[in-house]
């Protein structure tokens, strides 16, 4: 108990999370008289999971995309398609951000790469400053529920490693996220349409649609190939990741010639630092989780909770409150590896499907991205648009309420999540 407390203090003082988890695992193994090289043996399991290849490949592809002209072209195409509608540009922003984030894994690059294009466009089209800032800040994490987002993959990996409850596949998880993700986009879009119904509109032009599409002709097939390949079962996830990298390199280096070859090492360096940070936490959590399972901590926790909460509904309400608070303090990857080993057995005990738990979890974390004190999107936006964090926080309140509504719908209407995967089976 004292040791756990000390470790929490260490984390709060700013020690890297992998260090804290590694310390926990080592203390655990030591207390059971197991040789500490067990931590290394568990860590080595990183080299035994084929799916993990997707993490470096997708991350690298995402970094390359965000440095290319792809964000610009994506905005132009969506603007040509939706710009004529009331609230059209708001929808443009939401759709473009969702697509981009699903490929870049909500590492904050969405705000940097797309926000810089969308914010001036929104302001020019007559959208309020507050609305525009709030929209961009919120959109930075929108799209986490769509394939091939990294947190979704990581959740699948965690569940497969734990072996608790019904076995699930990453493909199923990708299907489960589709409708809840669309729900969020639709709700936020409706707000954009309603709040700006008097903004003057851009005329629809077939010519602009044609020109924009022509400009983006090399990239347009990418989402189709990757998503079509994954959802049809033609590609395994890691194969889809390899195809994405090759495709992105082909377009941005050879066809558009936007990224010179000599720039690639720098992008590799940047992206692999992020990959290293994620994999290290994942590897250490493999060791600590094993220890947790051996000591039956999750089971004991479940018994305590079960004795106090009898029904599933109350549990779900408490789960939502807990996850919202957690999301304000931890980033999504840390939250996943720390909480899923504890939460999954409990949720399964209450009869919640692992797919449903995953979507509830990630949906709550999406909100955490733009809530203080440590919402990453707030800080990136603040840095990018040179506004105080508190001011940005206030601009996100209407979006926060709408996201909260989506989270509640997702939580209490399991069919929304489970219907598509059930068709697949």
């Amino acid at each position, binding site marked *: 108990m004292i040791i756990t407390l000390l470790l929490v203090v260490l984390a709060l003082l700013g020690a890297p999370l*992998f260090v804290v988890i590694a310390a926990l695992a080592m203390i655990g193994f030591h207390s059971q008289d197991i040789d500490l090289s067990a931590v*290394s043996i568990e*860590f080595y399991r990183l080299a035994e999971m084929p799916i993990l*290849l997707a993490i*470096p*490949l997708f991350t690298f592809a995402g970094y390359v995309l965000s440095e290319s002209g792809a964000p610009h072209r994506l905005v132009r195409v969506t603007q040509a398609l939706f710009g004529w509608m009331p609230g059209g540009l708001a929808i443009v922003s939401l759709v473009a951000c969702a697509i981009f984030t699903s490929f870049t894994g909500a590492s904050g690059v969405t705000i940097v790469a797309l926000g810089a294009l969308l914010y001036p466009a929104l302001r020019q089209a007559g959208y309020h400053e507050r609305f525009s800032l709030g929209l961009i800040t919120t959109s930075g994490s929108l799209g986490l529920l769509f394939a091939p987002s990294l947190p979704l993959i990581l959740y699948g990996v965690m569940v497969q490693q734990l072996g608790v409850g019904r076995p699930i596949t990453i493909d199923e998880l990708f299907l489960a996220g589709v409708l809840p993700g669309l729900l969020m986009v639709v709700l936020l879009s409706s707000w954009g349409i309603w709040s700006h119904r008097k903004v003057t509109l851009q005329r629809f032009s077939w010519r602009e649609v044609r020109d924009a599409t022509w400009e983006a002709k090399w990239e347009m097939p990418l989402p189709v190939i990757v998503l079509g390949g994954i959802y049809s079962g033609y590609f395994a996830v890691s194969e889809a990741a390899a195809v994405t990298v090759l495709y992105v390199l082909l377009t941005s280096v050879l066809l558009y010639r936007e990224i010179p070859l000599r720039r690639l*090492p720098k992008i590799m360096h940047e992206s692999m630092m*992020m990959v*290293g940070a994620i994999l290290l936490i994942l590897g250490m959590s493999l060791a600590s989780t094993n220890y947790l399972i051996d000591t039956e901590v999750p089971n004991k926790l479940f018994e305590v909770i079960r004795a106090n909460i009898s029904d599933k509904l109350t549990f779900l309400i408490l789960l939502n409150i807990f996850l919202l608070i957690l999301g304000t303090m931890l980033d999504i990857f840390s939250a996943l590896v720390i909480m899923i080993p504890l939460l999954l057995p409990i949720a399964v005990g209450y009869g919640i499907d692992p797919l449903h738990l995953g979507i509830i979890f990630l949906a709550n974390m999406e909100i955490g991205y733009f809530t203080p004190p440590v919402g990453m999107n707030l800080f990136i936006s603040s840095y990018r648009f040179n506004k105080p964090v508190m001011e940005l926080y206030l601009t996100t309140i209407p979006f926060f309420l709408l996201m909260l509504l989506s989270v509640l719908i997702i939580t209490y209407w399991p069919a929304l999540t489970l219907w598509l995967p059930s068709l697949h089976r």
Partner: protein
Amino acid sequence: MMHLLLRITRFIEDSTMILLVSIMILVAGMQIILRNLFDTGFGWSDPLLRIMVLWVGLVGAMAATRERRHITVDILSRFLPARGKMVSGIIADTASAVVCGLLAWHSAHFVLEEYQGGAAAFDAVPAWACEVIMPIGFAVMALRFFLSMIDRITHPRQAEQSA
């Protein structure tokens, strides 16, 4: 002397990373082309790719340690005054150096046992050669955390800005 050593490790690390990522992309790409167009493949490409994920992860983590880019919870230290930040940084770095040192030591132990056991990871590649990145990686990270701690003590201002 120390400076030169750091520059050499940095060079080795950066080139290893670029080499790893490039080979990874090439092998993964080749595998898909072989499977789809020629309906064949190499038996070694799957295990090679899996082990490369471990290597890329550790080399990336070494670089992340160098640039203080690890994922932290960091709720408290954000709000501390300059002196408090320095103290919390020193405590965090020291603990991290100790933990990484222990990880390096025990990984080395594990690799040594595998070396003596002589098991193969795949084809003729011995298991220890795949695992050897673990002690190396954690040892480099331990060293970097230690140096970062020294840096915080000797150059309090600079360390603050670079963090």
